[in-house]
């Protein structure tokens, strides 16, 4: 049942605060993890039907059409669902041990599940306004989660995040409304059909600009990125992972490209703008990351930079570019999730995230160091890890589409990427051992386990990139590459 992706987490989230009164820790832990594991399983089971039919449209009609829910699932959404379930499962596993710092597991998990539900909903709905709504569901939950620590920095970050996001979503909604005005409908299908024979390119252009700004802010494209380096590091580590790994991709990239490809249709002008913004993001954020001393802040800037890659790939418009972008999206979700969790481990172990205070941890906590290394190298695009393949595909696509300059930027920026990741490695793990950390021990089991699972994913996806690509990425890319046709097909 595809609907379970939305309902189950919502339901559990609603129950959790009550359960929290009964059992503070164990039941919330188990329940959340089971839910997400179930969703993961579910998404894997969906591969076959989606694969065979291309897309899946489900309706629920209850009470004589009083309840009329419609859900559309194609390769792209399935990839997102899978990514969301996978990464958030690892994150909740990690949280089992990590949340001791914060307490209030039930509340935390409830918010987390609401966020998951919001993202799942966003991915599944075939309707512009619903997209906005689920965006807000996930966003409201994320504001609270960013501020979950209730420290001054957390609050500050959350506030800025909220205030910028609100503006962004206002523009998104504005744009949706104008499109509604132009076509008279809100569902993807009808809008796509309506826009096809509509001759209002200027107004539509402005709408798209609003979308780019709105979703771009959610996805943290430069220059709309400024909230991210504040919000992501301030959140608890699992939430950082959630935000960087999933939220910016779902509410930013997924929504933007779903609308751009499947509803409006990609145009060269749009492609140019998005690619330019992607390239700028890559470079600017990479340079910014270089100057950071806080591990998580550096990772946050890295997210911006990598989102730049994803958008650069997706915006090329060729099937290969889309595939590369989506593959990178997946890989980045896994790897950045890993890195943020890992930074949580570091913080748990040492109590600090300042690179200058760390040093030589590799000797004391080899597993944390190793998983961090794998994640970092994967994002930097060092083979044989997963990130390499996606970057490779993106660059191939760039060259094939004759964007030599962008290819060069992408290539050179990957050197920068490696540069700042090496900073982390050097300062935190491989330098001389700081005397303060003589007595530290490896992080608790579940934290380490989550790290290891994600690191293995990075590695295995890299080694077995071919089956992964064929199973998950290629259908998703096909779905996008078919453009507006994909949405129009849904009805049939």
């Amino acid at each position, binding site marked *: 049942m595809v609907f379970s992706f939305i309902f189950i987490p919502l339901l559990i989230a609603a129950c959790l605060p009550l359960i929290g009164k009964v059992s503070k820790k164990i039941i919330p832990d188990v329940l959340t993890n089971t839910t997400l594991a179930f969703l993961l399983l579910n998404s894997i089971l969906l591969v076959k039907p989606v694969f065979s039919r291309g897309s899946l449209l489900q309706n629920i009609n209850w009470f004589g059409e009083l309840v009329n829910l419609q859900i559309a699932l194609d390769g792209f959404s399935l990839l997102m669902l899978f990514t969301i379930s996978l990464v958030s499962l690892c994150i909740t596993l990690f949280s089992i041990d990590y949340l001791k710092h914060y307490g209030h597991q039930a509340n935390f998990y409830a918010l987390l599940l609401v966020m998951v539900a919001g993202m799942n909903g966003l991915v599944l709905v075939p309707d512009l306004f619903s997209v906005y709504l689920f965006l807000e569901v996930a966003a409201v939950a994320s504001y609270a989660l960013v501020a979950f620590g209730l420290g001054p920095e957390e609050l500050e970050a959350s506030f800025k995040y909220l205030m910028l996001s609100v503006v962004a979503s206002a523009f998104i909604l504005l744009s949706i409304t104008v499109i509604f005005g132009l076509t008279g409908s809100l569902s993807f299908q009808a809008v796509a059909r309506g826009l096809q024979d509509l001759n209002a390119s200027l107004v539509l252009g402005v709408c798209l600009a609003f979308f780019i700004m709105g979703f771009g802010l959610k996805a943290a494209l430069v220059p709309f990125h400024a909230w991210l380096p504040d919000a992501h590091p301030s959140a608890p580590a699992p939430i950082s992972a959630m935000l960087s790994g999933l939220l910016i991709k779902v509410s930013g990239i997924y929504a933007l490209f779903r609308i751009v490809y499947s509803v409006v249709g990609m145009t060269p002008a749009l492609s140019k703008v998005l690619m330019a913004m992607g390239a700028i993001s890559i470079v600017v954020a990479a340079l910014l990351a270089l100057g950071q001393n806080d591990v998580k802040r550096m990772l946050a800037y890295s997210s911006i930079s990598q989102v730049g890659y994803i958008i650069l790939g997706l915006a090329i418009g060729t099937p290969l570019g889309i595939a590369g972008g989506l593959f990178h999206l997946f890989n980045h979700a896994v790897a950045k999730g890993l890195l943020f969790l890992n930074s949580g481990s570091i913080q748990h172990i040492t109590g600090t995230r300042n690179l200058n205070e760390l040093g030589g941890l590799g*000797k004391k906590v080899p597993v944390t160091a190793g998983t961090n290394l794998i994640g970092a190298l994967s994002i930097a695009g060092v083979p044989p890890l997963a990130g390499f393949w996606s970057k490779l595909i993106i660059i*191939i696509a760039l060259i094939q589409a004759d964007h030599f300059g962008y290819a060069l930027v992408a290539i050179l920026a990957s050197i920068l990427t490696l540069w700042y990741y090496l900073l982390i490695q050097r300062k935190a793990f491989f330098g001389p051992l700081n005397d303060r950390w003589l007595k530290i021990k490896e992080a608790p089991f579940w934290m380490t386990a989550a790290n290891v699972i994600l690191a293995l994913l990075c590695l295995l996806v890299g080694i077995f990139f071919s089956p992964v*690509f064929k199973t998950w990425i290629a259908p998703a890319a096909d779905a996008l590459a078919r453009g507006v046709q994909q949405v129009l097909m849904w009805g049939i």
Partner: protein
Amino acid sequence: MKVETITQLIIFIPLLGSLLVPLAGAISPKLRSFWSVLIGGITAFLPLTLITQALKGGEILWSKRLALGLDFVLIIDPLSIFMSIVSSFIGFLIIVYSLGYIHHEEHQNEYYLMVVMFIGSMMGLVFSGSLVFIYLFWEIIAIACWRLIGFYRQKDYVLKADKAFLMTFGGAVVMLLGFILIYAQTGTFDLTAMRGVAIPGSAVLLILFGLFSKSATVPLHTWLPDAGVAPTTVTALLHAAVLVKIGVYAYARLFLYTFKIPAAWQQAVIIMAVISSLIAAAGAVVENDIKRILAYSTISQIGYIFLGLSVANPTAVSGSLLYILMHGLAKAGLFLCAGIVIHSTNKRDIREMGGLIRTMPMTAISFLICAFSVIGLPPLGGFFSKLLVIMGAIKANQIWVAALALFTAILTMYYLMRVFSLVFLGELKVSAPEKTPSMVGVVTVLALFSVLAGFFVSYPMKLVQLATTHITWWLR
């Protein structure tokens, strides 16, 4: 066993075996050492069984189709077999040497993991027939290398490691761009499908970036002397035997075996090679740190290898291939001798050493023999390779280049003899005994091999000849 199977084993045994090293290390250090030596030994042994295949000439191709045409292709031909024998053998010797050298250090798990993985990916690189997989193994090597250079965790050491990683990575990604340009032109990454294709100069330039950065050729060379902060075993592995040969090997694989390189670029490589050789030799004369000297020396010798390959006539090419072997043996020997010296004196500045021939005669003599081989004096192996390269250059009408190369050879002689005199002769400044038998044994073996390779040069030469005729198929 089928040749293809053996080849896959050569690649995957060390790659997967390396992952088990930390596990073995968790059980006991003895087991770890045993395991590493075992894997190294198997990897060194298996290529030998391919010699019969090599002597048959011709090539065997094997490929596994992967998504997007990024196929995994293996080319088993005399060139790859030759290269695999050389690098796995030296790698194995270095593992054995490490048993003594690295004995007291921390992070041994990481060390053996990386060394074995290094060797494994080298094997992968050597047999790969696909641009993507060449790049892939290329970078795995870079990772291993990076960790190994930063082995001693000092602050500036890890900085140097990062520098090396960044420079080689930078070169490599630029090279990747070149690969992709070729892909855009031909629609495939499979080398065997692209033989004889003329590629644009821009792609050549980009690829050269990668090759030069990995093979430490001027102007992308400065990471190599700095990488001398690594344990000497590693520098031997990096500088001498394996790492820097990668670029050279890739040059042979790409620009001789596969593509037609535009004549202007070929000339450019020739000139770069010889200039690199000269400048690096100058560096070796000026430096005082023994490992930096040897590192510069490596850069200089790599220049010769590039020279031979870029001249691209059979004489020079076979000279270059032979050079890979001879330089590998001799330079590994030099580094490991230097390692013994450093290990026992705890000094690296040659001006602070002296007279060590009295306390460590075997090391001194091995050093001298290896030095002679690097200089290119008969009857040691290095003579033939250098001779053939220079002869080839002259034959290709590159007379001034050849003259400059010979001049560099004199510089080589000068600085190596300088090192030898300062370290081993003169008055004894630091008295230090020779080290464990496994270390001295390995350097002796290497020196011995340098000598034997000179006297029995015709055996490796046969393989080299086959490889040369195979990769210079376009001359036929």
